[in-house]
């Protein structure tokens, strides 16, 4: 019968034996990962002189082996040694760099406090906000260095007056500043007679292109990473209730928060249980029919309202044009953005009232439907405005109208961003809804970021405005949270929500923005008397003319070749798409195969469990039979007594036996 200490000794010996051939870096990692006390880890790292192993000779032998190993290492190539020392230095610098980055990371302490008070789901909103801020900081820095600073060097004096209204309308004084694209020169800036030249047109288009491309790849990678972590890896067996029971949020340190969390957990568990029970409940045909018809009606009404709002916005936009022509009040430009913001605030409240009529079995579905309706509304309104703007600029021949329209769009963008936040906060808090609704807040962030991306081509300073807005948002949300102290009642699964948010950001928002920009660049005629592209038939002609100038210079022919054959040819993109599709299909097949494997292995585990129980029962029966076969032997040898005791122990504490077997078994794969 194995004793506890004996088992432990075996495990430690195996561990030491496995540690010896490892490199020092792997050894440190392996020791750190051991679930042991500091004392034991220290002894392991010093070569196995543990207090548990009584075998000094064995320890000495291990030491000798270790020194032999080091001797062998010294005999290796000095190249390998160089590499080792380089990798060690690299690791050390990486550690110190990450420590420095952690210490200057923005809002680190505040986020820890929020996480402690409200939990990880609210924290995910603030993390998302910080992530968006990084985008905007990057865009701003790139824009500033490559577009705005060169423009400042050739800036003309601003002759317009500054009144306070400009901060809201964005016209007037700001019209002749770097905020608007119309201000930028189309010339090639040259300082001194022999200085390098700086082509403003190309700089403009390439800088904006670089910003958006970086955003695209960063979104793609984040999405892939979150998707892989949250949806592919946790497989069918990560059941809902198990997670609720075992994933208590240890980061919460505030007493009120803990009590709230317990209450929420209780509600959620009961909901989950009722969900599971109701999966089997069947409704009568009549009930099903009524329920189905309420769903259909609700969807018809909500879609109708959305369409009505879109039509209203479209006609208002048309009317706005004539309105602006006749009235010269600078404040009149605010009408369209104001109306759009009001719609965006009022209609979601209306949608949430559908809850009274529609009945869903799972409250989770209710929330998803509400989210989808809100998203549809917002996207369609944005889409209608873009469509209107693009069409009208294409059709109209007058430059001044085109200009005014561009200015109008910028105004709308800026003000939607500002208004939405200010009015929204006031309205919602006055209606007495103090709960921190994560979904709604995140949607607002995504909406604002979409607007910024749309407007970035015509207003390069927009990331700066968005940055300021995000800063203000962070502090106001933080303060309102602390004052109201109402964390959300629905416990969202934080990590899955992040995936969902980023997916939302990517699919409707970013791709829509890309389409709009593509149409702008390829199909629209730039205005003829302002902006860096004045005089060109289309925006894209700046690149065409650049390629033409390059093709005359022999040193840059490879750029022209890449442009003509890779970017400009259809075949290349076709082949690329084909490759991506093939890779996706392969991954899908691998996932399917793994699912089958998991099912088979699960069945195997069940069968092995049954085998184990069968064998144990058989063993017990055999022991009983043996006992009966030697019934009343009073004189027993000492060994037999010991054996019998052991057997009795084995019989009674079969679970203890299993535990030791488990620890030996576990010792093996870990060692």
């Amino acid at each position, binding site marked *: 019968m194995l004793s506890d200490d004996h088992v432990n000794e075996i495990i430690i010996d195996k561990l030491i034996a496995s540690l010896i051939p490892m490199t020092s870096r792997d050894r440190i990692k392996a020791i750190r990962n051991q679930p042991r*006390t500091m004392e034991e880890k220290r002894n392991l790292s010093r070569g196995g002189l543990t207090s548990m192993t009584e075998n000094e000779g064995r320890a000495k032998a291990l030491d000798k082996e270790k020194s032999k190993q080091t001797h062998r290492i010294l005999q290796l190539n000095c190249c390998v040694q160089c590499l080792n020392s380089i990798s060690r230095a690299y690791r050390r610098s990486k550690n110190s760099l990450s420590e420095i980055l952690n210490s200057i990371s923005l809002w680190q302490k505040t986020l820890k406090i929020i996480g402690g008070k409200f939990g*990880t789901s609210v924290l995910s909103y603030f993390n998302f906000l910080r992530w968006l801020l990084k985008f905007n900081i990057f865009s701003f820095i790139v824009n500033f260095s490559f577009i705005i600073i060169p423009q400042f060097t050739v800036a003309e004096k601003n002759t317009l007056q500054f009144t306070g209204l400009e901060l809201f309308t964005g016209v007037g004084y700001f019209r002749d500043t770097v905020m608007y694209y119309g201000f930028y020169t189309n010339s090639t800036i040259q300082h001194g007679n022999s200085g390098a030249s700086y082509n403003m047109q190309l700089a403009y288009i390439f800088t904006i292109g670089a910003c958006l491309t970086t955003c695209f790849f960063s979104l793609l990678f984040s999405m892939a990473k979150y998707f892989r972590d949250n949806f592919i890896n946790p497989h069918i067996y990560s059941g*809902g209730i*198990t997670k609720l029971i075992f994933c208590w949020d240890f980061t919460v*340190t*505030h007493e009120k928060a*803990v009590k709230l969390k317990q209450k929420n957990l209780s509600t959620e568990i009961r909901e989950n249980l009722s969900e599971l029970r109701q999966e089997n409940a069947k409704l009568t045909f009549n009930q099903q029919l009524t329920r189905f018809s309420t769903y259909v009606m609700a969807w018809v009404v909500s879609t109708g309202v959305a369409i009505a709002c879109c039509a209203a916005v479209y006609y208002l936009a048309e009317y706005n044009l004539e309105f602006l022509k006749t009235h010269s009040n600078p404040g009149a430009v605010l009408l369209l953005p104001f109306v759009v913001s009001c719609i965006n605030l009022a209609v979601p409240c209306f949608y949430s009232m559908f809850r009274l009529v529609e009945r869903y079995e799972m409250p989770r579905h209710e929330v998803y439907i509400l989210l989808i309706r809100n998203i549809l509304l917002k996207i369609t309104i944005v889409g209608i405005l873009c469509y209107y703007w693009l069409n009208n600029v294409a059709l109209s021949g007058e430059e001044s109208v085109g200009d005014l329209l561009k200015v109008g769009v910028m105004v709308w963008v800026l003000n939607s961003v500002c208004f939405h936040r200010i009015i929204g906060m006031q309205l919602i808090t006055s209606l007495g809804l103090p709960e921190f609704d994560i979904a709604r807040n995140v949607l607002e962030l995504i909406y604002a970021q979409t607007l910024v991306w749309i407007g970035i081509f015509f207003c390069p300073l927009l990331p700066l405005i968005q940055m300021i807005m995000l800063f203000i948002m962070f502090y106001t949300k933080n303060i309102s949270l602390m004052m109201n102290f109402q964390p959300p009642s629905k416990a969202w699964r934080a990590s899955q929500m992040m995936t969902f948010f980023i997916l939302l950001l990517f699919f409707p928002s970013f791709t829509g923005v890309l389409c709009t920009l593509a149409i702008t660049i390829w199909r629209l005629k730039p205005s003829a008397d302002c902006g860096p592209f004045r005089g060109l038939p289309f925006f894209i002609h700046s690149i065409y003319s650049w390629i033409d100038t390059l093709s005359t210079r022999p040193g840059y022919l490879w750029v022209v070749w890449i442009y003509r054959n890779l970017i400009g040819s259809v075949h290349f993109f076709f082949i690329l798409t084909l490759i991506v599709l093939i890779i996706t299909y392969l991954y899908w097949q691998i996932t399917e195969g793994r699912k089958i494997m998991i099912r088979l292995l699960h069945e195997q585990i069940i069968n092995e469990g*049954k085998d184990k129980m069968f064998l144990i029962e058989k063993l017990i029966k055999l022991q009983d039979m043996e006992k009966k076969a030697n019934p009343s032997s009073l004189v027993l040898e000492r060994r037999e007594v010991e054996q019998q005791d052991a057997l009795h122990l084995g019989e009674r504490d079969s679970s*203890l036996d299993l535990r030791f077997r488990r620890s030996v078994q576990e010792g093996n794969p870990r060692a």
Partner: protein
Amino acid sequence: MGQCLRYQMHWEDLEEYQALTFLTRNEILCIHDTFLKLCPPGKYYKEATLTMDQVSSLPALRVNPFRDRICRVFSHKGVFSFEDVLGMASVFSEQACPSLKIEYAFRIYDFNENGFIDEEDLQRIILRLLNSDDMSEDLLMDLTNHVLSESDLDNDNMLSFSEFEHAMAKSPDFMNSFRIHFWGC
């Protein structure tokens, strides 16, 4: 007093702790400060011990429903030495590896310390989590049965370490929630 506290730890010890735990330099020094504030003055930090009550009343653990289990798992012979506290902070730190967190989570949740999480353990966990008195017996049994049906793979009505590991290993929610910040700085 602040000055003396910080210089009590030797540089080599700090390096060793950094190698053996998942904590950064600053975190180790902060925990060192906190430890010295709580232990009786004048004692060398390597010999001083804290009682389980003192550790339970740390701000990070004060309201945790499982604080008594955490103290039991990480203490030795009923008291905490400095290295025990470091070990605990290391397991709960952000950089700790998942296998370590799962191992200690299993030990914490195993209330009767028989090497398995059985029905009795599950019921005690649920009662701690919900902390409500109006938990009916049926609901408790129902919940326990659901958890076991989801995670018990070999149908023996208890969760062994492998089954627990399997349920938690790929769950990012678990990794993110099994964290405690011990240092006040």
